[in-house]
C-alpha cells in the first residue's frame, strides 16, 4: 500500500517536471530502434562500425605525450577503461570555475590547454573526434542520468527554451519535429526523437564521424535558421537539455546513424 502511494507520488513528481509536449520517460526511444537492420548490424559489430577507426586513433593518442609538459592523458588518468568508465554519460556538465556548460570535447581541450600546456585541438578535427570517441566508448551501455546539479538547471531551462522556440525561414521549432512528430517520415528519413546518446557517431550521410554540435548545426540549417558561431553558448545549453531529456536511455557511443 505504502509502496503504491510512493509510486503515485513519484509519478506525479516526474510528470510535473515534464512540460506539455515532452516525451514521457517510458516512451523515450533511441534512434537505433527505427534504423534499418543493415545500419543496426553496422553499429552492433565494432569490426563493421567505421567509428572503430577513430576509436583506435583515440586510444593511441591517449598515451601520447603532448604539450610543454610532455604528459599524456594516460599519465594522469591511467587506464581509460577504468578512469573514464561512465563519464561521458554525465556530460555536458556545469563548470563552476568558468560559470558555463562544458561538453566532453571542451573538457578534453581544457585538459590539453591547462594540464598538458598544448594547443587545443580544432573543433571537429580528427584528433578531437578520436579522443572523444575513445573516452565515450567507455560509457557504452551506461544509463544517462539527468543532472541534479542546481547550477545546471538554468542552462537546461535555456536549452529547453531554445528547443521549443520557432526559428529560421521555415518557422519551425526542434520540438515540432522531435517531440510532436517523431516516428513519422520526413522525405526519406524517419524523424527520431533527437537524442544525444550515440555521439560522437558515424553518420553514413557524412561518411565520417561527427560531434553532437555538428548534428545540431545540421538540423539548424535544415530549418533554414542562421547558424550560431561554432563556440556559441546556445549549443551548450541545447546539449545539456538534450541529455536531461534523454535520461534513462543508454549510451551507444560511438553509434552509427543513416
Amino acid at each position, binding site marked *: 500500500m505504502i509502496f503504491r502511494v510512493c509510486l503515485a507520488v513519484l509519478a506525479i513528481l516526474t510528470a510535473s517536471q515534464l512540460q506539455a509536449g515532452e516525451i514521457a520517460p517510458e516512451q523515450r526511444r533511441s534512434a537505433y530502434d527505427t534504423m534499418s537492420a543493415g545500419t543496426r548490424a553496422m553499429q552492433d559489430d565494432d*569490426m*563493421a562500425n*567505421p567509428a*572503430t*577507426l577513430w576509436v*583506435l*586513433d583515440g586510444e593511441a593518442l591517449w598515451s601520447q605525450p603532448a604539450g610543454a609538459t610532455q604528459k599524456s592523458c594516460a599519465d594522469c588518468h591511467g587506464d581509460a577503461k577504468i578512469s573514464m568508465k561512465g563519464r561521458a554519460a554525465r556530460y555536458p556538465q556545469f563548470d563552476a570555475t568558468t560559470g558555463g556548460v562544458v561538453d566532453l570535447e571542451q573538457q578534453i581541450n581544457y585538459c590539453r590547454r591547462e594540464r598538458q600546456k598544448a594547443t587545443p585541438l580544432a573543433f571537429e578535427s580528427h584528433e578531437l573526434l578520436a579522443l572523444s570517441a575513445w573516452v565515450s566508448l567507455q560509457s557504452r551501455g551506461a544509463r544517462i542520468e539527468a543532472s541534479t546539479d542546481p547550477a545546471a538547471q538554468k542552462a537546461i531551462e535555456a536549452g529547453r527554451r531554445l528547443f521549443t522556440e520557432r526559428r529560421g525561414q521555415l518557422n519551425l521549432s526542434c520540438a515540432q519535429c522531435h517531440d510532436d512528430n517523431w516516428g513519422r517520415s520526413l522525405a526519406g528519413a524517419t524523424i527520431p526523437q533527437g537524442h544525444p546518446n550515440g555521439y560522437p557517431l558515424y553518420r*553514413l550521410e557524412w*561518411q*565520417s564521424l561527427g560531434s553532437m554540435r555538428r548534428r545540431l548545426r545540421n538540423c539548424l540549417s535544415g530549418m533554414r535558421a542562421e547558424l550560431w558561431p561554432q563556440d556559441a553558448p546556445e549549443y551548450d545549453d541545447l546539449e545539456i537539455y538534450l541529455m536531461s531529456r534523454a535520461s534513462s536511455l543508454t549510451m551507444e557511443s560511438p553509434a552509427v546513424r543513416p
Partner: protein
Amino acid sequence: MARALINVPPRAKKGDIIEIRTLISHPMETGYRAGFNGSLIPRDIIRSFVCLYNDIEVFRAEFSPAVAANPFISFHTMATESGKLTFRWTGDKDFDVTETQEIVVE
C-alpha cells in the same frame, strides 16, 4: 597514415570455409564533387584490393568512385595451410597500404 582493421579467425580446421573482414580509413573522394570555390575536388579513391594467402592470390576487388568512404570488405576463402595472409590496398595519390595476419590451420 591509413588505419586498417583486419578480422581473420586465428585458428581454423583444414578445409574450413573462413570469413575474412577488413575495414580501412580512406575518404573515397569521388572526383565529382565541387569544393567551396566551385572547382572539382580531385578524385582520390582506393582502386584495388588484393588478398594473398601464402603468396597465392585468393581475392581481388576493383573499386569505383561509387564505393563509400572507409571501405569494408567481407569475403570467404578455404583454410588450406598455416601461414600468412597479406592484404594490400592501392589507389590514387600513391596510396599503398599492406598488412599481414597469421593463421594456424590444424
